[in-house]
């Protein structure tokens, strides 16, 4: 009797795992080995690896994601440090986080206006005597908008790791005669590294895949892995190739997580 009741509890969740976690993953891998007429083929991978266009696109996408990650990290780290020193830090953190609750597309849309040829940013540049520039439909505009959107996702984990850093350690370093710079490089930075890594994960992977920003801001100038997947699935209807790029994105995800995630083991050993 009880066993049956338990089964009733188990079924919906396990069904979800099978249908919406395992099946889609298997299907996208399976689809990547299919050609347009539904036969098994290695051709998608062959044409991906053999095509300079695809490889160049991948390299550019990775490069863009790297730049976005570095830009957000450089801006976020000092922000997190400052936040941590403020008396009402939770409130200020909330202010930094709040924009993430606003629809991503609306924030992106704002930049269409800001970056327009006659838009506010160009007015400002002219005011500075720098002259108007073509801002929309460039790599730079994509990098700026993506960094803007992902900034809070970098600040938060760094802030968390800094907030959990015991102040006694910093005092100890000072007592032992460390300069402020030494305290930073020897104590604060190594201990906040887990937050930095989490932030890199939270920024790098989406930067590879956010297709709506490239579409709205960079037109067809910038093609990320995500844009390529969207294009193959919804425009050219070549699902096999789209899935192949999807598998590449999955691999990229694993590589990033592998490079930034070795802290897991240490956590396991924590007492």
């Amino acid at each position: 009797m009880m066993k049956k009741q338990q089964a009733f509890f188990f079924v919906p969740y396990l069904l979800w795992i099978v249908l919406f976690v395992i099946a889609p993953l298997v299907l996208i891998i399976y689809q990547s080995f299919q050609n347009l007429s539904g036969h098994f083929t290695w051709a998608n991978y062959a044409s991906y690896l053999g095509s300079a266009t695809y490889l160049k696109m991948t390299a550019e996408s990775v490069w863009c994601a790297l730049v976005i990650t570095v830009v957000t990290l450089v801006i976020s780290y000092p922000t997190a440090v400052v936040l941590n020193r403020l008396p009402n830090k939770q409130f200020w953190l909330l202010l930094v986080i709040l924009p993430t609750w606003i629809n991503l597309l609306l924030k992106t849309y704002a930049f269409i206006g800001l970056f327009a040829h006659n838009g506010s940013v160009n007015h400002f540049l002219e005011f500075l005597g720098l002259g108007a520039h073509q801002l929309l439909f460039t790599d730079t505009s994509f990098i700026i908008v993506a960094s803007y959107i992902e900034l809070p996702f970098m600040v938060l984990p760094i802030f968390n790791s800094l907030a959990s850093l015991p102040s006694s350690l910093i005092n100890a370093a000072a007592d032992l005669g460390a300069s402020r710079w030494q305290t930073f490089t020897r104590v604060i930075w190594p201990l906040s590294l887990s937050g930095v890594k989490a932030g890199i994960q939270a920024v790098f992977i989406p930067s590879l895949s956010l297709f709506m920003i490239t579409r709205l801001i960079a037109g067809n100038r910038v093609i990320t892995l995500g844009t390529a997947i969207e294009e193959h699935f919804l425009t050219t209807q070549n699902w096999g190739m789209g899935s192949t790029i999807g598998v590449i994105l999955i691999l990229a995800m694993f590589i990033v997580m592998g490079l930034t995630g070795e802290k897991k083991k240490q956590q396991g050993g924590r007492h």
Partner: protein
Amino acid sequence: MKKQHTGWLGKVYLALVLVILYLPIFYLVYYSFSSGKTMEKFGHFSLVHYRVLATDTRMIQIVINTAIIALLSSLIATVIGTLGALVIKRVRFRQQRQVLLSLNNVLMVSPDVLIGASFLIFFTVIGLRLGFVSVLLSHIAFSIPIVVLMVLPKLNEMSPTLADAAADLGATPWQSLSRVTLPAMTPGILVGYFMAFTYSLDDFAVTFFVTGNGFTTLSVEIYSRARQGINLEINALSTVVFLLSLALVAGYYFLSSRAGRRNRVMTVKEGDVQ
């Protein structure tokens, strides 16, 4: 002396970051009150775009669709996710539990594009027509893991002796679940429901893949209108969305402080970027 100086510099820096973070949002709101047609030159103060928005029946229908999807999907995801947390808790072996948890988190870490593409293949394979049902199923699917992650800590906090005590005192498994376990989970369930709700409201990429032609949600509509260029009706909409988001954040903090996580640092809307 030196310390105070950096403090001052730090505050200016933080202010600058905050200005950058809020500038685009207030820029949108500012131009929503302009009588003009572009975000280049402010005409005079006018509510004309709000009037257009209020009479845009297509937009109103889309808002209703979005709300129905969000309410339904988060409700169903909360039920399944809560059951999921119970399942994970019930598994005895650590390794099996780890496997379940990893599977649970797959959709949390996957980029939206992949979730959308793979769900599209899935729905096509099982022969489901794209539209309301496929969007609803997708939203339920990607909301379940966050509910599990919000409920599970509450279950882990609960002392195992409580369930034993209930059993000793003659409670049936059902009574023990509804009278002991469920109340302990409730704060987590509420926060989970709330997160699922906002995930659904905000989702664009997954919906974009599985929505087909007939059915549209707010995010998809904003995208297709923004692709056509500037339209100050979207600005008016963003003011409304901004105010609603503020209300939601307030609601989240109310719920999570009741859930006893006051000191816990906040959750970001992961769904936003991934």
